[in-house]
């Protein structure tokens, strides 16, 4: 049965979305959560394992103090209360990539609770309340071989890599976020962007969504705009980029509206997001959910971070993104809206690095939010995924400032850089893009242009300086745009006694 999808604007005029986000972040500790194994990414399968993370009979976990500290830091950065006493809990379910068939996690006693973070959109602040931040261990990774889908169904056999099993994982859960209206997808994205910035500034994770070190589950529900009752929520998993966070919320809002418009009810379920189509498909229904049989982990003593420890960690908090934004906004002299646009485009770090590499703030902003944003959008990637570095953008801006290329040539040079032809400097040389400013060479072109249009030349000589534009155009055509128009103009006026 096909549902009729309405346009997004129409949907949000009739329904109010409520969103919520659960974010998993792999901590960048040297060793795993409960054993001494390395956490290095990309090693040969099953080379970073031991009796503990393989769940061999008799092996016992010992909590990694660095991971606990990192979690407390995250809690503090998100304005949470830090529990003075809490426990790990076992989450019991069978899955072949989970060595013990239970995951050591936290249940009703999380390490951090009740925080908040503000995200800014078009100069408006949205407060996202944080329900909890807790610490757990990651599972291994299954590879299903022989099927067409890469899923377990239809595969011939499955391989399990336990290198990831036991890597410390922090789960950050928001409270439901109502009141964002049509902006729900953008708010969701802005929150994840902000969270990623905070985690990066804390240095606790490399927060690479594409490598899975930061993963998002997005909860969405709809209520009618004239009703206070929240609808049934779904949880969309496998949302692995900032762009996908926004797309996942948007597509789920449209899908749920179609379900409701058809007079059906939204089923509480887990849905899988597909990067390519931007759509999600139904997964496990929560209405027949697993009973995880949580109970306090008896192999670990309770966690009891004392005030002194917490305060010592608080004192080490680095400048957080919000403070940094205020500082940079003042330094760069930008308006709130300009600053929000730049932040939400994920361009802050890039612009700061570009300025650090020698560009002016204005140039850096112009490049990243202008041409580069357009190109990123066209190819459906994040700004930072473009094949150009801030240093290269600074170099490009420098070439324009010194007059070696004009804007048009600079854009051509950028295309070359993105195509992997080298630095802007190298592309300009290789493609011969440099502005022709040699007055000798230009002089010939100017003389030819004057000779070819004696009537116009006469007008200029007679004092009608504006008529010189036609001659400038002719010279530019003759030099295929590589001449510096200002220099050409000056040469023409000098030849015609108007300088």
């Amino acid at each position, binding site marked *: 049965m096909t549902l009729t999808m309405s346009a997004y604007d129409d949907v949000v005029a009739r329904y109010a979305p409520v969103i919520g986000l659960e974010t998993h972040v792999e901590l960048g500790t040297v060793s795993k959560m409960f054993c001494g194994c390395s956490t290095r990414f990309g090693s040969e399968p099953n080379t970073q394992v031991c009796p503990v993370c393989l*769940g061999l*009979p*008799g092996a016992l976990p010992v909590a990694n103090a660095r991971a606990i500290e990192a979690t407390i830091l995250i809690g503090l950065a998100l304005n949470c209360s830090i529990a003075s006493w809490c426990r790990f809990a076992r989450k019991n379910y069978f899955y*072949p990539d989970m*060595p013990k*068939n*239970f995951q050591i996690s936290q249940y009703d006693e999380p390490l951090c609770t009740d925080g908040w973070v503000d995200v800014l959109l078009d100069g408006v602040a949205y407060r996202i309340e944080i329900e909890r931040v807790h610490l757990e261990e990651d599972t291994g990774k299954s590879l299903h071989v022989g099927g067409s889908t890469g899923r377990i169904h239809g595969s011939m056999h499955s391989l399990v890599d336990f290198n990831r099993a036991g890597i410390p994982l922090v789960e950050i859960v928001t409270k439901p976020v109502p009141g964002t209206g049509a902006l729900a997808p953008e708010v969701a994205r802005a929150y994840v962007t902000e969270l990623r910035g905070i985690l990066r500034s804390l240095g606790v994770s490399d927060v690479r969504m594409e490598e899975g070190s930061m993963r998002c589950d997005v909860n969405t529900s709809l209520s009618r705009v004239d009703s206070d009752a929240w609808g049934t929520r779904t949880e969309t998993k496998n949302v692995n980029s900032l762009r996908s966070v926004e797309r996942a919320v948007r597509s789920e809002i449209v899908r749920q509206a179609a379900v409701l418009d058809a007079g059906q009810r939204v089923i509480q379920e887990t849905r899988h997001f597909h990067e390519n189509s931007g759509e999600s498909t139904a997964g496990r229904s929560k209405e027949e959910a697993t*009973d995880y049989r949580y109970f306090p982990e*008896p192999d670990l003593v309770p966690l009891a971070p004392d005030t002194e420890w917490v305060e010592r960690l608080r004192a080490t908090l680095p400048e957080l993104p919000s403070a940094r934004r205020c500082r940079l906004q003042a330094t760069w002299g930008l308006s709130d809206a300009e600053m929000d646009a730049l932040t939400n485009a994920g361009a802050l770090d890039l612009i700061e690095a570009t300025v650090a590499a020698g560009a002016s703030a204005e140039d850096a902003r112009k490049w990243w939010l202008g041409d580069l944003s357009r190109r990123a959008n066209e190819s459906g990637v994040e700004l930072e995924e473009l094949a150009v570095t801030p240093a290269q953008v600074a170099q490009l801006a420098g070439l324009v400032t010194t007059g070696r290329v004009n804007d048009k040539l600079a854009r051509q040079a950028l295309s070359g850089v993105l195509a992997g032809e080298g630095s802007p400097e190298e592309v300009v040389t290789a493609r011969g893009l440099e502005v022709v400013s040699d007055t000798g060479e230009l002089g010939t072109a100017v003389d030819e242009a004057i000779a070819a249009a004696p009537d116009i030349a006469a007008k200029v000589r007679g004092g009608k300086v504006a008529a010189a534009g036609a001659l400038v155009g002719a010279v530019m055509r003759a030099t295929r745009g590589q001449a510096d128009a200002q220099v050409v103009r000056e040469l023409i006026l000098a030849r015609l006694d108007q300088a």
Partner: protein
Amino acid sequence: MTDLTRMDAAALAAEIAAGGASAVEVAQAHLDRITAVDAKIHAFLRVDADGALAAARAVDEKRAAGEVLGPLAGVPLAMKDVVVTRGLVSTSGSKILQGWIPPYDATITSRVREAGIVMLGKTNMDEFAMGSSTENSAYGPSHNPWDLDRVPGGSSGGSSAAVSAYEAPLGIGTDTGGSIRQPAAVTGLVGHKPTYGGVSRYGLIAFSSSLDQAGPLTRTVLDAALLHEVIGGHDPADSTSIAAPVPAVVAAAREGARADLSGLRVGVVRELSGDGYEPGVLDSFAGAVQLLSDLGATITEVSCPHFGYALPAYYLIAPSECSSNLARFDAVRYGLRVGDDGVRGLEEVMSLTREAGFGAEVKRRVILGTYALSSGYYDAYYGQAQKVRTLISRDFAAAFETCDVLISPTTPTVAFPLGARVDDPMAMYAADLCTLPASLAGTPAISVPCGLSDGLPVGLQVMAPALADDRCYRVAAAVETAVAGRDGQPILAAGQSL
């Protein structure tokens, strides 16, 4: 020459250190004894003669090189199969781990090896330590050397049978609800359950994590203390291990052997007697109370009103934890795999494996525990049991305000006949009635032989506050000395000889 297998561990170590016998001779004598009697006893699941002789040779070489030997160097030991041993199959008495060779040593295994103790092999046990008779072993029961038609206790019945039958002077057991003390009592041995956290659990195949403790099973109190000092002490690999020095149990055992308990305040737990206790057991217990009084202790009766709830609380907590601990046996990474024909799916193979690999008692407890932890039942069962546990700890704390140690019979009955309780789980569970409170409270307790009932040994349980294991040893050693004085010989000497 004296029969090396009849010597206790302390004497053997002294003999080896003095050059009276080599460690290899001692090991060989015990291997020969095993060959001679274990067909009847079935204490061992597997004997590692090569490993044992190699370990013994290493001790002899050290001695020849003039190195100082540890206090138990060269003394043979029977290791319960629940303890993981690198390179030596460890099954925890279960079919599901048949043939599993661990790639690592438990902490206590390494400590035993480093002490120069000679591990003879792995002993039989109730599957995953669930039982009181070894009849739940997937590999058949062990027999009590005192009467081959009776059980040697459980779950550490293989170790108790081995030590009692002179197949080894030292045994390691584990105690979750009484699995060291009860087998010790019914085979005439000394068995100590240390303070929870006193001995590392790293490498014990977990049954119930919040209760499991390894400890010694020996023929004398001093031997138990010597082994306790080898295996005890902080282990960074076990988060629940206590960062404190091992209590001075050897010194306490020596002090106790002087048989003077003047000024010691002994509490008799009222709730651990009465209905269900055999008259012969109560008689022996009364005799022990008299002995303690004769040794100078003051005896009072104390009430621990919540001890009566220990059994139901235990049978919620232990199954709950085991339902989770045993989830890892899923045919994916090691152990048994049944029905993997290339057609059946993962879940079906997992199911068939667990169906075939687990025995009835294990399944009973996994199902019970799964139910007790389910959403909607957790508070009523697991949560409530944890509250009872707290109340039992408070009973202990109150009693220890007026007493230095508490005593009771170790078990309500002497060794029961094989098969007598296999079809009656509740009767089987009752064997642990007296030992459960100290397990739930995490406090130390020892069982020491105190008499005979119709020719079968009876154990006296001595319980002390957490970390005061030395008190258990001191009192037990005093009782051991006094009983030998009263009877003219140690209890074990009355055992039938095979």
